[in-house]
């Protein structure tokens, strides 16, 4: 197993379980289950024990390993600088070893099968991948400055599609030059890679790279932070080098081109940092810049924000496999409680997966009367004076 040489070096001191300000548990799996086994240190020691043949890899073992949301909180806060950067890589390598051993939770197996067969997690025909943009009359990509790349959730999930449409509408409103490729692009593969299915990730990535090459794409705006991460950090090694931007990074600098309607009611909004934009790629500013440019928005911060943000629990493929749900302390439920405690009326998100996870949590927590989850472009669009 790759990175196995660091497993025994973990002391299990537990800094990885917490945010930098120690407010509360910040590892989604550990928060949800609370057994030491589900903590990053627990995983390190269990993987070592498995490799040493002290324990077998059964269904519990697999659930523990695959419940990691790859949120990166452990990497951010681990006390050991000599190997902290390799923690997630070790967990992903552990998942890869489990997959090779034929030991994956059924939900993981089903997800990967769909990805293998259909190129997306929804088992939908790829020829319909442009349906999310129906009625928008978006231009097909040709010589525009950017390609707009929607991820799995943005392409197929009903709520994700709404967000994709909203972002596309705002990009157009802000006079950003972009087009779409209505057919041929499959899942970015980020979450497949996070599950340790490296070969399938590379297969998906190469398919996309072939399509992007055919269209001579140079600059890409992604809807999802997960896509942003894969295209920006992983595709270059596979021959796909592009200038990649998350949509908030483009729109943050285009806000001055927008005209806002007068008399917008003031509202308190908290911004939920997506892990793959924040901790994985160190952008904590773009989403906030967008919101701060809108009159009437009072940005408030939750106790856990920026590099201390609590993940929605959807990362690492858990959005699709749902290994972290159940219990009062799923991280999505804790997160919406935290937003409500901060006095926010709107919890702003910049990721379709976060949107779905947190909207479900608002309902379960019965917070619908006081807290609304909305994606950043939706919030902006509600206050923009349309010019087309």
């Amino acid at each position, binding site marked *: 197993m790759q990175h196995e040489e660091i497993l025994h070096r973990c002391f299990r001191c537990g800094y990885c379980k917490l945010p930098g300000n120690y407010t509360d548990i910040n590892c989604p799996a550990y928060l949800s289950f609370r057994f030491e086994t589900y903590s990053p240190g627990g995983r390190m020691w269990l993987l070592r024990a498995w490799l040493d043949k002290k324990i077998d890899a059964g269904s*519990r073992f697999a659930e523990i390993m695959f419940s990691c949301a790859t949120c990166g909180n452990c990497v951010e806060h681990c*006390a050991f600088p000599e190997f902290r950067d390799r923690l997630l890589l070790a967990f992903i390598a552990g998942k890869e070893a489990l997959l090779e051993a034929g030991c994956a939770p059924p939900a993981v197996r089903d997800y990967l099968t769909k990805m293998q067969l259909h190129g997306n997690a929804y088992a939908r025909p790829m020829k319909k991948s442009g349906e999310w943009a129906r009625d928008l009359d978006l231009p097909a990509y040709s010589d525009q400055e950017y390609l707009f790349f929607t991820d799995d959730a943005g392409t197929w999930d009903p709520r994700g599609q709404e967000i994709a449409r909203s972002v596309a509408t705002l990009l157009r409103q802000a006079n950003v030059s972009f087009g779409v490729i209505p057919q041929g692009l499959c899942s970015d593969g980020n979450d497949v890679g996070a599950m340790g299915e490296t070969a399938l990730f590379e297969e998906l990535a190469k398919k996309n790279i072939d399509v992007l090459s055919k269209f001579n794409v140079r600059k890409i705006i992604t809807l999802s932070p997960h896509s942003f991460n894969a295209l920006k950090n992983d595709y270059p090694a596979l021959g796909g080098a592009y200038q990649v931007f998350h949509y908030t990074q483009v729109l943050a600098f285009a806000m001055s081109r927008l005209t806002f309607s007068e008399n917008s009611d003031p509202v308190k909004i908290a911004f939920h940092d997506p892990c793959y934009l924040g901790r994985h790629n160190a952008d904590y500013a773009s989403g906030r810049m967008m919101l701060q440019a809108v009159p009437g928005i009072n940005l408030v911060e939750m106790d856990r924000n920026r590099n201390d943000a609590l993940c929605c629990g959807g990362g690492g493929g858990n959005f699709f496999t749902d290994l972290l749900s159940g219990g009062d302390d799923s991280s999505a439920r804790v997160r919406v409680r935290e937003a409500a405690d901060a006095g926010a009326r709107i919890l702003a998100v910049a990721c379709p997966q976060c949107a779905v996870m947190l909207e479900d949590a608002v309902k379960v927590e019965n917070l619908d009367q006081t807290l609304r989850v909305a994606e950043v472009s939706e919030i902006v669009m509600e206050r923009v004076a349309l010019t087309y």
Partner: protein
Amino acid sequence: MTSDLIARLGEIVGPRYVSGHAEERYLYSMDQGTMPPAAPDAVVMPKNTEEVRQVVRLANELKTPVVPMGAGLVLSGLTRALKGGIIVDMKRMNHIIEVNPKSRYAVVEGGVSQGMLQAYLKKHHPELKHSMPDAPPIATLAGNVCIHGSGHLSVLGGSHSDMLTGMEVVLPTGEIVRTGSCSVAGQWFARSPLPDLSGLFMGWSGTTGIVTKLGIKLFPSYKHNDVLVFVAEDADLMPEIISRLTSTQVAEDMTPWMTPKPEWARGFLHINIAYGAHTKKELTFKRNLLQASVREYADQKIAGFLPLPPPQKGRFLKIPSPDLARFADLRKGGGFEYVGAIMAIEKFADAYRAGLAIAEKYQVSYSLGARIIGAGHCMMFFFAYAFNRADAEDVRRASDALEATNTAALDMGGIPWKAEEPAQKQIIEKMDPETFALMEKIRGVLDPNGIMNPGNWEK
């Protein structure tokens, strides 16, 4: 039996929060130290006191051992299930129940972490703080109080058990009792003037009950904070230096340390002296007092204050400091354990020399140091040894060094703190027989079925 146990525990706490799986049994069988594994039959995580009570009653019915656990960071193996049974992991009981700013106490549940309370106070009561141990922030308040821990306000307030104001405890037979003022007045301001029943649960290594709530003292949090580092070369001077510094009564914390690394520190004895003030003027006044108390040594050029660049000072002021956990990676192997001996201050030089000799004899990577408790009333002198847990020989060397250190500490008149099960036996051998007989009598009354963390404090 085990499946029945799991099912019945599941009826109490819900199936999500009980496990008899191999994964949990493996991980909970050990801690980060050198003690050999001892696996539980089940791990259970109750949400409230009533669930703890039901778990304890079930354990009595089944005559199954019960081992309470906070964050499991004791390092000396006290939360291992030496005779199997149920580990009660308290971390779901993590509510901060009350902060009383005028009487300066907080009431928390048994699973509240040090870091969580620190964050809560910073946000809601920035004028207050509690004494943080050097343990990582995930360590629990209850666990640390129960082992007589100490921390960053221990010169000011003594051991953390001295800062306790009361407890709620589930007894081994399932009754829920309160100690201190909360048992009479409903508020948690003091343990006096009642018979001090809290002592029944501190230092007993989980053999007398499960602490579900506790009250602890809070202290003023200063706007201005500083640390001085006094350096000497002669260990024999240290008791007098400590005495003079503590006599000023301005330090919050004093921690001598002696390490072979970094290179500039080798061979020197350092004392970090942390203090704070509401104003810069007050801070200067306190600094002057501290400096004046040991000026004689500086004048003689046999000791003096170390000039500290701001980044270094910042690291010394960081509470808790991750640098301490990093000691575990000294041997690239994720392990360290220490003997922390509670000792008289005048034994400082003996302890220092013994530590060096043991490190040399067993060829272990070491760090020596102490925390002064109270105004120089005693100290917790620690002998820490790093090891590579992937190297059995290295672990054995560290284990042998720890055993030798426990012996040496006892020979010097010290008492190993949060002693491992073998070290408990060493302590018992030295203990006044009537004292140990009383301990056994008390346990017999409290725990007639012998279910509470058996194997500890036994001959």
